[in-house]
């Protein structure tokens, strides 16, 4: 998305991804990028608190910062923020799952990756808050499977064995949901267990079409990237931009995934 916008607006964009999604890897990366003295830095902060100080530093260098996706404790140094509220994503995830499970309700569970990544933590937080308010649904807790897909599969299979009456599962990011899907496929319970996830990678959409995953809360990374660069260009041209702007998220299901309305939000190839 960012690249497309860059072409459109004639800006020069370089993309860097940290090896691990966490502040310990992101901060040095940020600093190295800064050494190239760009005009703008667009980033997806991995931690609400940890990035405040480094970004202050960045801002004091006269570089303008645009945050996408995750927010920060202190937003004063940001030129603009574009993104989804991840707590809200979590709530949507809960509602989507509840809808898939249907009115009879039953036990549901959350399979997460590793704790300590604020995007994911917030989604889990939102999910837990929202699911508690939904009637008929009994939430039996969050299990962390780490980033290993097979561990998530192993974990969810065990959960299924321990709770044969499980009717739903949610996962806040891609790897756990792939593992959960593997377990569902293997156990052949795709009809009885509803699964909801976040994001829409090629693999997840494939699983959605297959009917193993039932709902995806799809953010709009393309849109986010696009808007971020757009905002940057606007600021560069001296135009005003809104300090906060959201792109919202949309629920994808097997039935609507091929609608053009939805598919335009899907990840387009490589976006990191």
């Amino acid at each position, binding site marked *: 998305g960012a690249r497309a916008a860059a072409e459109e607006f004639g800006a020069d964009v370089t993309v860097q*991804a940290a090896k691990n999604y966490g502040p310990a890897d992101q901060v040095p990366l940020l600093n190295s990028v800064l050494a190239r003295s760009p005009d703008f830095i667009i980033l997806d902060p991995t931690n609400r608190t940890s990035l405040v100080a480094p970004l202050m530093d960045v801002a004091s260098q006269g570089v303008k910062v645009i945050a996408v996706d995750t927010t920060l404790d202190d937003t004063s140094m940001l030129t603009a923020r574009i993104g989804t509220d991840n707590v809200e994503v979590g709530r949507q995830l809960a509602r989507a799952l509840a809808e898939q499970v249907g009115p009879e309700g039953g036990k549901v569970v959350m399979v997460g990756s590793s704790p300590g990544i604020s995007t994911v933590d917030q989604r889990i937080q939102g999910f837990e808050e929202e699911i508690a308010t939904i009637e008929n649904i009994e939430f039996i*807790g*969050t*299990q*962390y499977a*780490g*980033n*290993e*897909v*097979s*561990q998530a*599969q*192993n*974990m969810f*299979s*065990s*959960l*299924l*064995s*321990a709770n*044969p009456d499980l009717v739903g599962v949610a996962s806040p990011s*891609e*790897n756990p949901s*792939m*593992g959960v*899907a*593997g*377990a569902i*496929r*293997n*156990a*052949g319970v795709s009809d009885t267990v509803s699964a909801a996830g976040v994001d829409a*990678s*090629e*693999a997840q959409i*494939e*699983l959605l079409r*297959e009917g193993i995953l039932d709902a995806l809360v799809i953010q709009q990374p393309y849109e986010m990237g696009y808007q971020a660069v757009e905002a940057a260009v606007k600021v560069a041209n001296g135009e005003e931009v809104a300090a906060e702007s959201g792109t919202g998220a949309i629920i994808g299901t097997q039935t609507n995934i091929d609608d053009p309305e939805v598919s335009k939000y899907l*990840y387009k*190839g*490589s*976006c*990191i």
Partner: protein
Amino acid sequence: MSTIESSKDNAEVNDPAARPQPSLLRRLLVDRPEMMIILALVIIAGFFVAVRPDAFLSGINIRNMSIEAGMMMFLAVGMTYVIITAGIDLSVGSLLVLSGVCAVLVMRMIGIDHPAAPWVGLLVALGCGTLWGLLNGFFVAVTRLSPLIVTLASMGIALGIARLLSGGVDITGVPRSVVNTIGIGRVMGIPVIFLIATAFAVLAGVILHRTRFGLHTFAIGSNPQAAERAGIKVRRHLVMVYAISGFCAGLAGYITLSRFASTTIAGHSMDNLRAITAVVLGGASLFGGVGTMFGTSVGVLIPVVLASGLVIVGLPSFWQEVAVGIVLLAAVLVDQWRRSSRSR
């Protein structure tokens, strides 16, 4: 003790008959190196069965554990060879990913519905793994660098290439037939993955323990110079051992594809340590020369049973990590106790 003919009169001191006879149990535990670790496994599994027999022994859990163990076994087979030569291979997880990515890309290229696609994909995965293993082996054997550093570097390179090729996102394009026959296939209720893994492990075990190739592997780990002087081509053998490890990673990569119907680029960073753990739990020594394929297969089972069982008994997520560490430590402790009681 003395040697060569004249030593006969020594027998008076060391004659077996003169020794106090150890109890049968003790002899079993002490003389069969794998007994202790099997005992540990039995205790662990027994505990879970006692607490939640329904859930732990449910078809779904057994099947899942067998798949999980099977997957890890592929990597552990190669790692057993490598560790017996006193080496180590940190690159297996990345290589698994890279082989998978290459296979998917090639299968997509020839069309995933093409009837030959599954076979071509398999060949690509195995070829890619083996080739990479050959490279590892080359650096270890010919330039004599530390295997830890070589495979650490090649781990990073392989993952980087995998991400370059895939653009950093997981790609789909695994023929359905592969997913159906291997990934979720069963024969008489037994997961195909488990069957393949078992057959593979048995084959690898037979080669390790019955053939010249296997004997040479032990000899090299035990004393590379002696092996060299006995006429074994040590370098070539080492290259082959790392190639085997690469082949195993390639196979694991292909089967992972069939399991998840897509690549899983980000999810294998701990595979190397898990495979090493399994091999060491199985009684192999990181200093080389010692290890059995049977021990490794028990060593693979322990973490799998533990992970699954702890979820089933409902231990909260974070406690599980703590428990896994403690049980691991306990398992090697009893094993250590056995060894020291043998050497005494």
